[in-house]
C-alpha cells in the first residue's frame, strides 16, 4: 500500500499569546489568544461551533470551543469554565502567557440552513460559548435571517456568562434576548429576569415554528428537554442542531474517546443534527 506523507501538524500545538483575560463569572474566564507565528494547520480560520485542543503549560490538553472567531490579527477567544486541573490552569492564564492550541477541529454550526428563516438560539450555562459565534455571525449579516431569539439559561444570576454581550445584543432592538436562572443563589441579588428552566423561555419567544432553525447547546438533559419543547412548539427536529460533549484526548479521530455510539464526535461533530443525536442520547450510558 502506498502511504502518503502525513504531516505532524494536527498533533503539534501552536503557541498562542494571551492578549486579554476577561472574568465572566467566579469560575469562568474568556481568553483572547493571538498567534505568535505561522499557524500549523495553515490559516484556517475557525467557524462557530468548532473547537481547539487547549493546554496551559504543564497541564493536560482539553477541548474548548471558540467563543469568538478570528478578529484583529487572527486573534480568537475561548471561554473556559474551571472545573478541573486542565481548565483551572487555562482560566488562570494571564496576558503575556502562552497557551498551546491545536485546531480548529470538528464541524461548525450550519448557518446556511437558517438563511431566510427565523433563528432560535438556546443555550444552557457554558453552552453559550460555542453559540456566541452564531449570534455574532447572524447579527453581522442580519438581513439574511428572519426573527432572532437568543434564549439563555444559567444556574444563578452570578453564573451568567457574556452579560455585557447579552446587554449589547438586547440593546440593538433587532434581536430578542431572554434570560432565565434556575434559582437566585444569593437571596439578596436583584434579579429582574425569569426564574425556571430555559425551555420555559420558548413560550414567550416569537418565531414561526415552520420556518425556524434552532441551535442548541448545554448540558445533555437540557438539550433533550429543549429539542422536545421545540417539537411541541411545532419545530421539526430536522431543523434543530445541537453540539454534544464527549471525552476527547486527540480531536482528530485517533484516540477513540469521543464515541457516542456510531458517532466519533470530534470528527462528525461536535455540532450534529438533533435527529441523529437525540436517539443516541436516549440510550442510557451510551
Amino acid at each position, binding site marked *: *500500500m502506498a*502511504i*502518503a*506523507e*502525513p*504531516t*505532524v501538524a*494536527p*498533533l*503539534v*500545538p*501552536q*503557541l498562542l*499569546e494571551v492578549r486579554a483575560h476577561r472574568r465572566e463569572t467566579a469560575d469562568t474566564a474568556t481568553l483572547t489568544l493571538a498567534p505568535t507565528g505561522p499557524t500549523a494547520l495553515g490559516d484556517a480560520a475557525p467557524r462557530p461551533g468548532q473547537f481547539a485542543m487547549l*493546554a496551559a*503549560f*504543564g*497541564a*493536560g*490538553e482539553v477541548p474548548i470551543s471558540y467563543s469568538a472567531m478570528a478578529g484583529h490579527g487572527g486573534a480568537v477567544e475561548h471561554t473556559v469554565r474551571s*472545573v*478541573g486541573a486542565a481548565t483551572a490552569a487555562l482560566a488562570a492564564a*494571564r496576558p*503575556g*502567557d*502562552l497557551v*498551546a492550541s491545536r485546531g480548529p477541529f470538528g464541524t461548525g454550526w450550519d448557518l446556511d440552513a437558517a438563511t431566510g428563516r427565523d433563528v432560535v438560539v438556546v443555550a444552557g450555562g457554558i453552552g453559550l460559548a460555542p453559540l456566541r459565534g452564531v449570534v455574532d455571525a447572524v447579527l453581522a449579516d442580519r438581513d439574511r435571517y428572519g426573527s432572532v431569539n437568543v434564549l439563555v439559561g444559567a444556574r444563578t444570576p452570578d453564573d451568567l456568562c457574556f452579560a455585557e454581550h447579552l446587554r449589547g445584543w438586547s440593546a440593538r432592538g433587532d434581536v430578542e434576548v431572554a434570560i432565565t436562572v434556575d434559582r437566585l443563589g444569593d437571596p439578596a441579588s436583584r434579579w429582574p429576569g425569569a426564574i425556571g428552566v430555559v425551555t420555559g423561555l420558548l413560550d414567550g419567544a416569537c418565531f414561526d415554528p415552520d420556518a425556524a432553525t434552532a441551535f442548541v447547546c448545554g448540558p445533555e438533559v437540557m438539550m433533550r428537554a429543549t429539542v422536545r419543547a421545540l417539537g411541541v412548539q411545532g419545530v421539526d427536529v430536522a431543523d434543530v442542531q445541537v453540539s454534544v*460533549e*464527549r*471525552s476527547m*484526548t*486527540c480531536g*482528530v*479521530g*485517533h*484516540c*477513540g*474517546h469521543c*464515541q457516542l*455510539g*456510531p*458517532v*466519533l464526535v470530534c*470528527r462528525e461533530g461536535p455540532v450534529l443534527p438533533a435527529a441523529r443525536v437525540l436517539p443516541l442520547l436516549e*440510550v*442510557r*450510558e*451510551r
Partner: protein
Amino acid sequence: MGTDTGAVVVDVAGFDALLALLARERRVLGPVLADGVIGIGEIAGVADLPAGWTDEQAPGRYRAVRRDDDALFGYAVGQRSWRTEVNPSRLPLLQIRRRRAGEGDRDGARHQEVLPADPRAGVEPTAWVGVRGCDLAALAVSDRVLLGGEHPDPHYAERRRDVFVVAVDCTSPASTCFCPSMGTGPAAAGAGHPGPTPDLHVHEVCTTDRHELVCRPGTDAGRALLAAVAAEARPATAADETTAAEAIAEAARRIDEHRHLDAEGLAGRLEAALEHPRWDDVAERCLSCANCTLVCPTCFCSTVETTTDLAGTETTRTRVADSCFTLDHSYLHGGSVHASTRSRYRQWLTHKLDTWWDQFGTSGCTGCGRCTTWCPVGIDLVEEATAIAGPTAVAAHPEGGPS
C-alpha cells in the same frame, strides 16, 4: 508443470536462506516461544521459530504444547498481535520547553518552544514473518482507522510504510478462532481477502514424507526475494496449489463447525438489542480488566499523559494505549458516561461488531479469538454476541428455533 504466478517451493533449508536474506536488509520479527506463549520477537532464521510447537486455546485458557511433527507454523495466534509494531503502547508525541521558571516569573511563560517527536525516529525497515490472515485483515482495519481520515496519524504511517510482510496460511487453528465467519482466514491472502497484499504468501506443507513451503510473491519486493533463493527452490506446480487449497478448505471447515458467528446483519441486530438482559448477565462475569482490548489487534484507543520535569521547564506529551473498560475513557466533568461494567462491555462489543461499520466502513473484529482466549474469566465473544443479537434466522422467524 509450473504455475505462472511466480510461486516457488522451498524446503526448510531454503526457507532459512530466505529469512537470512531478509535479515540482511531488515529487522525481522516472527513467532517465537517465550514465557510459555508463542509471541512475536526478533528472528534470524528458522532456528528461532517455534518448530514442533502448537497451542491449545479455549476461552480463558492458553497452553503451548509440543506437536508430533516439526512444523514451523503449526499454531494459531498468541497474545501479542502486530498492532504494537505500528501503534506502540507508549509513544512520545512532543515536548514543550520554556526558558526558565521561577516564583512569579511570567517571563519564562513567554519563551516557549514546541519540539515535536520525529515520526521516523527509531523506525527501521522491518519484516514481519508469519502474519496470519486475521492479523493481515486487522492491518487493513487499522489503516482505515489511523490513515483513512482527514488527519492521518504520521507516527502510524511511518511505522507502517516499510514493512515486508510474509503471510502464512493457518492450518492448525485454535478452538477460539472464527476467521471464516469474518472472511479473514484461514488463508492469509488471496482473492477476496480483505487484507493488504503481502509481499510473500506462504503455505507450509508438513507431512510424514514432505516438509516444504509454497511461497507466492505478491509484490516486486517479494519476487526479488524469491529470485534470490532460486537456486534452492523449484517452481510450484498445480498439484502444490491443490494441496494447499485442500488444506485451507479443511481448516476452514473445522473452524466453522466448531465456532461460527452469524455476521450477516449482525450490526443491525446488536443495535436493536442495546437493552437486552444478557448485558447485565455478562456484566456480572466481566472484571472490566481491559485484557480483551489490549490483546485485540484492531483496538486503537489511546490517551495522552502530560508530565512536567521537577524544574518546571519541560513538559512532555506521551500517547499511551487506553481501553474503553477504564472509567477515564468516557470521563466528562461530573462522571463517566460508561459508569457501569454493563455499559463498558456493551461499548466494547458494539464497537467491534456494530458501530465500527458506521465509523470506518468495516467490522472492527477479524475473528482472531484473542479476546476470548485471554479473558481471565473466559467470556466468549461469539457466545455473547450470539446470545444478545441472536442468529439471523431468529430475527427472520420470531418464533425462534434452529435454522
